[in-house]
């Protein structure tokens, strides 16, 4: 890693230092656990989005897939509404649903040649719409002990969900660094025409990347459902912008070709620590979002490697 890409890490450490000076509780083990709990879902979502953003595309379907996944999960595992109890099969089904939506995103993007921005905006609406229609607006309580255990049961002091997120991170790192697909995602971001001339099937890589992202969002949906103990159609609200902000704050460039899953980890931590810290520091609620905006500008301004970016869009 080059020195410049350490800048976000320095920003993160600085942020932690400031918060812990104001409220020393920040550094307690309990708070570390809570930050990890808050970070696990954005992390999984951010990992998925990182693949898409490295390709130079954008994925707005985060909330749609997550919501659909959470709702489908809540209806298939042991729950308070119907007699289903499919356990792990339900989890597999949810992952397939995520993959399916991602696959459709990719297909529309490369076959109908609709820019990813609009494709995924469309599937966002569609995903939430289907989730809504499935539940008819109600919330379904999840009673499956395995799913609930993700949020409640702990291993080495951290909830299982955090370990699941770390497993996702590991898988993403392997995909990114040790598979052809992962490298071809970079190739598409670096120059799609050149990649095609090198014999890479651009369409296949795009579709695969969107599919993988969909699976990660579905994992996010499972974790969200586990955390809240229910599935409802609002469970995804507000998660999209957090996700993309985290990816960009980590230093992945929206124009593609640059960035990595590891950088997204740092970005997610910056965003999560910032919002956690704001409560700990006692920032008044009505100005929190404004302060957060300013802090993110500062974080990005400090951590962006301007030499790598000739054109900022």
């Amino acid at each position, binding site marked *: 890693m080059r020195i410049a890409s350490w800048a976000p890490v320095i920003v993160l450490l600085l942020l932690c230092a400031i918060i812990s000076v104001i409220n020393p509780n920040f550094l307690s083990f309990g708070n570390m656990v809570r930050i990890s709990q808050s970070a696990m879902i954005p992390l999984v979502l951010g990992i998925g989005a990182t693949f898409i953003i490295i*390709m*130079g*595309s*954008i994925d707005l379907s985060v909330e749609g897939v997550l919501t659909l996944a959470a709702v489908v999960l809540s209806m298939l595992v042991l729950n308070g509404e119907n007699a289903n109890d499919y356990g792990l099969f339900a989890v597999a089904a949810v992952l397939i649903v995520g993959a399916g939506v991602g696959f459709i995103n990719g297909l*529309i*993007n*490369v076959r*109908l*040649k*609709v*820019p*990813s*921005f*609009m*494709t995924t*905006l*469309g*599937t*966002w*609406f*569609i995903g*939430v*719409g*289907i989730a*809504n*229609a499935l539940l*008819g607006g109600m919330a379904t309580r999840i009673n499956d002990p395995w799913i609930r255990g993700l949020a409640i049961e702990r291993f080495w002091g951290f909830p299982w969900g955090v370990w699941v997120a770390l497993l996702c991170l590991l898988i993403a790192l392997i995909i990114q660094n040790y598979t052809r697909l992962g490298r071809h995602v970079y190739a598409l971001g670096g120059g*799609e*025409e050149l990649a095609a001339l090198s014999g890479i099937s651009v369409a296949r890589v795009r579709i695969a990347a969107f599919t993988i992202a969909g699976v990660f969002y579905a994992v996010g949906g499972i974790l969200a459902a586990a955390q809240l103990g229910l599935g409802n159609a609002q469970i995804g609200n507000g998660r999209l*912008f957090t996700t*993309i*902000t985290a990816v*960009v*704050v980590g230093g992945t*460039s*929206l124009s*593609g070709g640059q960035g990595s899953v590891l950088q997204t980890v740092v970005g997610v931590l910056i965003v999560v620590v910032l919002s956690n810290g704001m409560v700990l520091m006692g920032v008044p609620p*009505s*100005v*929190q*979002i*404004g*302060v*957060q*905006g*300013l802090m*993110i*500008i500062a974080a*990005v*301004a400090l951590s*962006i490697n*301007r030499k790598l*970016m*000739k*054109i*900022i*869009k």
Partner: protein
Amino acid sequence: MPMNSSLKRLNIDRLRHWLPLATLIILVTVVGVMEPVFLQPSTLLQLASDTAVLFILATGVTFVIMLGGIDLSLQSMASFSSVIVALTIAQLGYVSFGLAVGTGILAGFLSGIAHVKLKIPSFIATLAMGGVLFSAALVASKERSITLGDAERSYQTWVTGSHFGIPNVIIVGLIVLIVAHVLQAHTRFGRYSAAIGAGEPAAYASGVKVDRQKIFAYMLSAGFAALAGVILAGRLSSGSPTLAAEMLLPSIAAVVVGGTAITGGVGSIWRTLVGSLIISVVRIGMTFLSVNIFAQNIVFGSVLVLAVAVTIDRSKIPIVK
């Protein structure tokens, strides 16, 4: 022989140019055939006036999208602007509208500076600016919506009244259309924007003051968003920090559905007008056709994707990202 083929290409180009409008007309016809009330002049006028705010927001962000950027602060800007109007109209009268739009232009200037000088991607810079504006609106309004009395509402007849049976808000929308069209198609700024969006290095090397054009685009975007907020304040006779909630994505979708490339360089205000109307027709059309409420989001999403598949001019977009 080559002339012949280029003539053909010209015709195809011209055809492509009309695709967004054709899409709109088809949609209106479909709804109209199934529910003839939809085609009554009063309904269509209603549709047009209900599209005005969306159109004005979309117009502003068109300038930024043309450059290849994005403005995510516009709904917070519009809400903040409604709060400014509501708070000051009693003392300042008509000046309050200017104050609101002026604040918008200032906010746009600041986003532009953050984007251009600090080199922060516009996605993040404007998202953050949106947060700041939302906080400002919450603090200024003391976190509640402010209703305007009759005396204050009398300043707003230019929004709420009508002339010769045409609601004023449509006239305001038309003025915005003309001003924005002139800016975009007949001024140096408009030309430079297109050049920057289509090929920033070449524009820069040709002596275009890229930074200045960008900042100006963000000022226009936020300025139009503030104007939309002023109009909303008139239509709803109040100001509230959440008055323009959930209008951001429809506005951007309107721009793209009209066929403007989200990557910049290609587009026009006319396309944005058509795009805004498409969004309105689809939405209101679903109500007219009694589309099942649970299916509405699904239909809306599908129509958006299909509309873009039809309207977007791929000949001018090198790679679809």
